[in-house]
């Protein structure tokens, strides 16, 4: 490998999202004719780094060179001109258009603005033949909407191949594929490698990385911590590199909750969930671990009745009908949702209304509100949670992320919930506010509330939880308790779970 002039070289890449540093000085260097893995725990910035190269994320600062010459990549179009193509798990297909039209989308053959169906098909044919073994009986003129998710993912890959990239980014592009389909994609990747293409491979499946990649760059908290040659390391060493020599996170050593079972979930199925069952005690903090997007948010939404689902849930032994958030709230369930701006707060409305909206009916008489009571209730929350506000009449949009999140907590605390569901409650929150939110969560548990928390940071689960349920593909696959909860165990559990069952749970007819 010619280390002096890599095909891709990213250095000193910085990207902030609000108060969160997604990338802080990450580097990456890969040559033509190699498959280069990009690895890291949840929130380490591996996807963001790929997107910087693909032009879909604008870095705050970056030093990018392709084939030795410095470049600026301001848009996906600019990236395409430089020969960079990217495939993500989220598809960019137009469902109503045919397979061949999707493949040539953006580079349609034709004359003076008129499209030629025949030329489009001819252009798409070689790609379809190449992916044929995996695509099964897909026809070029079939609308993409009729394809299985796996087949659609393959079309997406085909679309990138058609652009004949010098650099191909595959970001979790195999996640929805069946094992046989993955092998076809791997064959294609190996051919590309022979042709001198540089493939950047982002996957959460460690076995795929081990099988396909030549080298790998490992990221942690937005920084590159190692670059390794895959043949020389063991999977265990890779996990250790991903987690790092972390100083053991200070765990608040409290007695494990011995209260009665408060929340019982049986056979809960729905969007992104299959047959989830677990119990949680009063005063217990239960974490939802695993790789991101394995059904953690969906589980919380389902428990709150926000999405359609089947199964049975009971609180303190009494069954809860999960028909709507309203009925869940009436049974003492609360949700701090993942997206503060659109789900947690009403940004344009005053802080007072945001704090009182979920509980005002309790204080109202015949539908009429008493201004003094409402003000007293919201002032109590502002004091208890030490929310820094200018005035209760100011809109929530005037608050910082941490204080806005405290308002969401306050809204539910006024309802005195028995079960509180937290979906990544400290996302985009600065360190100071984070520890105050931890204090609020511990206070809730001490008062007997059952806390179920999903987090994009493993460290957060280690800090807070009595127990972590590790999720994979919509189900709970493992459980880690008490002092066994460490970052290393969490990463290991998350990565290892997929190996044995790979492909089986997403089985679909590929032939």
């Amino acid at each position, binding site marked *: 490998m010619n280390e002096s002039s890599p095909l891709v070289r990213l250095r000193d890449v910085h990207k902030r999202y609000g108060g969160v540093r997604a990338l802080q000085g990450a580097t990456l260097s890969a040559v033509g004719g190699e498959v280069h893995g990009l690895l890291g725990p949840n929130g380490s910035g591996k996807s963001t780094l790929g997107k910087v190269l693909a032009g879909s994320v604008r870095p705050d600062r970056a030093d990018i060179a392709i084939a030795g010459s410095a470049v600026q990549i301001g848009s996906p179009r600019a990236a395409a001109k430089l020969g960079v193509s990217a495939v993500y798990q989220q598809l960019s297909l137009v469902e109503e258009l045919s397979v061949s039209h999707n493949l040539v989308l953006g580079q349609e053959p034709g004359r003076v603005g008129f499209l030629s169906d025949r030329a489009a098909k001819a252009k798409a044919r070689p790609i379809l033949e190449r992916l044929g073994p995996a695509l099964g009986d897909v026809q070029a003129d079939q609308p993409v909407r009729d394809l299985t998710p796996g087949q659609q993912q393959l079309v997406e890959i085909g679309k990138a191949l058609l652009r004949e990239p010098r650099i191909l980014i595959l970001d979790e592009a195999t996640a929805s594929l069946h094992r046989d389909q993955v092998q076809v994609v791997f064959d294609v990747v190996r051919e590309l490698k022979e042709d001198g293409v540089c493939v950047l491979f982002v996957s959460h499946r460690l076995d795929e990385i081990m099988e396909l990649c030549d080298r790998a760059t490992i990221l942690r908290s937005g920084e590159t911590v190692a670059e390794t040659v895959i043949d020389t390391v063991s999977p265990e060493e890779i996990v250790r590199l991903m987690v790092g020599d972390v100083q053991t996170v200070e765990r608040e050593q409290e007695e494990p909750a011995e209260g009665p079972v408060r929340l019982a979930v049986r056979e809960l199925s729905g969007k992104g969930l299959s047959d989830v069952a677990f119990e949680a005690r009063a005063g217990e903090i239960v974490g939802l671990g695993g790789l991101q997007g394995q059904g953690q948010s969906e589980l919380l939404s389902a428990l*709150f009745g*926000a999405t359609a689902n089947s199964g049975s849930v009971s609180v303190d032994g009494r069954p809860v009908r999960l028909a*709507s*958030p*309203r009925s869940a*709230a*009436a049974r003492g369930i609360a*949700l701090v*949702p993942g997206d503060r701006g*659109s*789900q*947690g*707060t*009403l*940004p*344009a*409305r005053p802080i007072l*209304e945001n704090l*009182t*909206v*979920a509980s*005002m*009916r309790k204080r*109202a008489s015949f*539908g*009429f*509100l008493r*201004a003094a009571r409402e003000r007293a209730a919201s002032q109590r929350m502002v004091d208890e949670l030490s929310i820094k506000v200018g005035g209760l009449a100011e809109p929530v949009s005037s608050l910082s992320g941490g204080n806005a999140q405290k308002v969401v907590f306050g*809204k539910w605390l006024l309802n005195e919930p028995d079960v509180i569901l937290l979906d990544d409650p400290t996302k985009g929150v600065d360190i100071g506010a984070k520890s105050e939110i931890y204090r609020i969560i511990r206070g809730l548990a001490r008062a007997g509330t059952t806390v179920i928390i999903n987090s994009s940071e493993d460290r957060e689960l280690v800090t807070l939880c009595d127990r972590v349920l590790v999720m994979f593909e919509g189900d709970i696959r493992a459980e880690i308790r008490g002092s066994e909860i460490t970052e290393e165990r969490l990463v290991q559990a998350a990565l290892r779970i997929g190996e044995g069952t790979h492909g089986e749970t997403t089985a679909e007819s590929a032939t």
Partner: protein
Amino acid sequence: MNNLRRVVRDPLVIAALIAIALVVAGGIVSPGFASPDQIVNMLRVASFLGLIAIGQTLVVLSGGEGIDLSVGTVATLGAILASRTMAGDNAMLIPGVLLALVVAAAIGVTNGLGIVFLKIPPFVMTLGMLGVVSGLILVVTGGVADGRAAPALVHLVNGRLFFGIPGILIVWAALAVLVTLLLRRTTFGRQLYATGAGREAARLSGVPVNRVLITTYTLSSVFAALGGIAMVGYSQQVFLNLANDLTLPSIAAVIIGGTLVAGGVGGYLGSAIGAIVLTVLTSLLTTLSMPEWARIVVQGAVLIALLAVYGRQRRLRS
């Protein structure tokens, strides 16, 4: 200083200043325009639009591109049903008004159900309803409008009840206070603002979003019918297109009043001032004997100019 600047930039204050400026300008151009009599008369005419704009305000506040294009025809239908029932007889006044309000409520519930459960965009749903109601009017009247307002209704609108103030203005003022209380001091009001400011966040806070929306569209039709009934008290005779032309002004009044088009922010007081601005503007242009087309152009231009001014201060976020 800062406070003063904030007050001057408040849409409500801007709209009120415009209304006063228009009256003063009218008084200069044509003596008698700003006379107490003339002002009372303009307010009387403004009240019909003002009543219809109550419902429109609630609908725009409810967000989700909330708009009710059926208010004009619903007002006309309400006026026709009420005046045919009363047929110039005081004894039938109450039954006539009740019939009109009940039918209007049924229309509003239908709008709400279509928007909530069939997920039809409000623009399309209420546009369709406009057509349906126009047809209903033809069925009910057979193409001939022959209702007459009860004398008591005429007296309420055209007479001067207290110290020279027409009763309809007192009704309007009372309803303005009630609606403002509804918005600010009841759970329904808070839920309406929440629904408009962020539908998903409202739903996840336990707000019965569907119920709020259906109630809102129902209230919109009911207030529209009320406006139509007031109008027939003014004209005494009913016409087949009595209030049809008030739909767009009712939306304009809400916007002039500073209610956020995206929903969730605003109130009725502004819409009431907006209704007055539009009415005074129309009579000023009439006094200047501007041709019809020029009046329409000026009204449209004023609306766009005001929106541009408001839009500068706060982004029309959705």
